[in-house]
């Protein structure tokens, strides 16, 4: 065990294990721990060897060898007991329930089963009664609608107000929202107003039925570490989940449920006004919705060969996306960028052409169902994780793929 110059036993931090959560910094009674270069560092001369950093570290990055057990976290009050049920915010898009909301209703059913409680649908909007019926068919037991013409378009303030109202009334122990732009904004507004915990972009949800804790797992550090987060004491426990992470449940039109109409307590004061909406067709494209992406990397960044890649994408009902390096050359616009500073995508098939696969790029596409890599470098990171990798010149490989697909289409149309 390391000692300082005064001969005192001290704690030490393994930098590669540290995730910079700063819990030890907050816990240290003598301010001996500081963040240096993104990791916690203990000043050996200040350390008194109390071991509290060892106790709080969630990743066992602290070496502390005094013979003692990890202490449990300080005594905490139990969560309020009168919160019941798993609620899902039902997002309306183009007059219909957003698919991500139904995916979450499916997940909520599973969680509610383990907790032996109900699934609630929270549905603010204008003219939403048919969507409420649909919510029941997908698995809600009770749908609370706040149907008001002033909720026709989304504003964080008005929708936030409606959701806070529903939470105060129905008191759900869990509230799930889709991690769409709208859902993320709304979740944050509601969590702030209710002063409760919110975990963004979860890829896994489970429950600890004994404590009724929602176990929220999310990627962090660009998808290289997974963290499971708890909200122990406050309710509702809130989480957002990205589209297409959870499975879409089957719709059962025979399912029975209850619809409760709630009058909206309108918001006072000046509200922002939406002047104009430019749909994506006119505004550009949304690569996150495409079932197939042909992703152009630095190794295929050539305007001459773009039509060939577009043809490949088109044959599979897909579209073209790219890596950051390609955006920087100006070949393709930013809205087509996959990765940490671009879009997170999870297509059915991802075809990387000349994409090496830097960590930040991988972070934005690791959820893809199938990954195909075409690259000259056998050791490129994307090749390492791909389901199929073809090593060679893409200008020869891509035409072969196009030929193969056309043959399949011909075959299929004959049948």
């Amino acid at each position, binding site marked *: 065990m390391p000692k300082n110059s005064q001969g005192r036993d001290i704690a030490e931090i393994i930098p*590669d*294990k540290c995730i910079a959560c700063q*819990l030890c*910094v*907050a*816990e240290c009674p003598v301010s001996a721990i500081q*963040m*240096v*270069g*993104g990791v916690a560092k203990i000043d050996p001369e200040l350390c008194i060897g109390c071991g509290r950093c060892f106790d709080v570290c969630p990743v066992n990055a602290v070496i502390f060898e005094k013979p003692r057990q990890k202490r449990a976290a300080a005594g905490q009050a139990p969560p309020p007991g009168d919160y019941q049920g798993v609620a899902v915010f039902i997002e309306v898009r183009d007059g219909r329930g957003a698919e991500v909301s139904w995916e979450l209703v499916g997940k909520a059913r599973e969680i509610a089963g383990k907790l032996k409680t109900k699934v609630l649908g929270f549905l603010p909007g204008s003219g939403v009664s048919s969507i409420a019926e649909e919510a029941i068919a997908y698995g809600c037991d009770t749908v609370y609608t706040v149907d008001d013409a002033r909720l026709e378009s989304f504003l964080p*303030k008005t929708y936030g107000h409606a959701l806070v109202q529903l939470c105060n009334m129905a008191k759900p122990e869990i509230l799930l929202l889709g991690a769409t*732009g*709208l859902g*993320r904004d709304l*979740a*944050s507004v509601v969590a*702030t107003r209710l002063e*409760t*915990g*919110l*975990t*963004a972009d979860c890829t896994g949800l489970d429950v600890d039925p004994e404590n009724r804790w929602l176990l929220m797992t999310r990627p*962090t*550090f*660009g998808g290289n*570490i997974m*963290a*499971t987060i*708890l*909200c*122990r*004491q406050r309710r509702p426990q809130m989480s957002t989940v990205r589209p297409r992470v959870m499975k879409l449940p089957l719709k059962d039109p025979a399912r029975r449920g209850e619809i409760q109409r709630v009058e909206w307590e309108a918001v006072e004061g*000046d509200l*922002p*006004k939406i*002047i*104009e*909406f430019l*749909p994506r067709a006119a*505004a550009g494209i949304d690569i996150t919705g495409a079932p197939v992406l042909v992703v152009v990397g630095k190794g295929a960044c050539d305007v001459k060969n773009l039509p060939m890649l577009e043809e490949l994408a088109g*044959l*599979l009902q897909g579209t073209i996306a790219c890596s950051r390096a390609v955006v920087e050359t100006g070949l393709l616009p930013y809205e087509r960028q996959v990765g940490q500073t671009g879009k997170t995508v999870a297509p059915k*098939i991802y075809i990387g052409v000349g994409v090496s696969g830097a*960590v930040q790029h991988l972070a934005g596409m*690791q959820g893809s169902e199938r990954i195909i890599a075409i690259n000259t470098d056998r050791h490129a990171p994307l090749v390492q*994780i*791909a*389901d199929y*990798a073809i*090593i*060679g*010149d893409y200008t*020869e*490989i891509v035409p*072969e793929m196009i030929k*193969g*697909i056309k043959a*399949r289409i011909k075959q*299929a*149309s004959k049948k």
Partner: protein
Amino acid sequence: MHIVCCIKQVPDTAQVKIDPETNTLIRSGVESICNPYDLVAVETAVQLTEKHGGKVTVITMGPPQAEAALRDCLALGASEAILLSDRAFAGADTLATGFTLSQTINKIAAAEPVDLVICGKQAIDGDTGQTGPGLATRLGYSQFTYVSEIIKVDLKNRTIRVRREVEGGREIIEGKLPALLTAELDLATPRYATLPELVRALRHPIKTWGAKDITDTPEKLGLKGSPTSVKEIFTPGARAGGLVFDTAAADGRTTADFINTLFEKESVLLDGLLDQG
């Protein structure tokens, strides 16, 4: 006009490497940078003050080393920088962070009214995008996230009109000042700092505020004010590599053969996608 930018120092993920043996992150020696979206926020703010007059104040919450990120912003043209550094702030989740920043901005605004707060749309280390909307809610400001263009600022009528990137399209929206915006990457391109700007940034004094400077309710700060906690951390199972075909390896198979094998194996997935029209 007075604009406050909230920035964050983050590890430079471009430098993060994965240890191929253990499949864990190699984090030592990774430099810290100013979150790229936040630099866009600061550039936007500086451009607005160049047009309308006024000043830009940048704030960040972090350890003393986060000062470096503030200096990057001063070099871009920010006028003032405040570092929120206190052990009481450590371990904050987004709720506590929103509280800390809102208390700070309220204090700044009490001395010099704030017209606009600009944040990056998210930080590249956490990717949550929650801090901006939470902060706007606490401040009671108009909230515009994912902003890709500022169309008009009307200081006389106290309004702002912006273009936002939303699901399925773009939205032109107008609201009252004070407002909080979160910046998309294409809102502005951060300029290269000139040598005199860099020198000014290095010499410029940075104020450091602690818990006592901003709030009487320290229980809402840092670890104490954070309802969420990390239960465990694990490394995701790496995607195992799959079939590899090397066109240069002359083993008798052709590229077309391999592609056909691929198509056969994935026929279910593929046939659902074929464009037969």
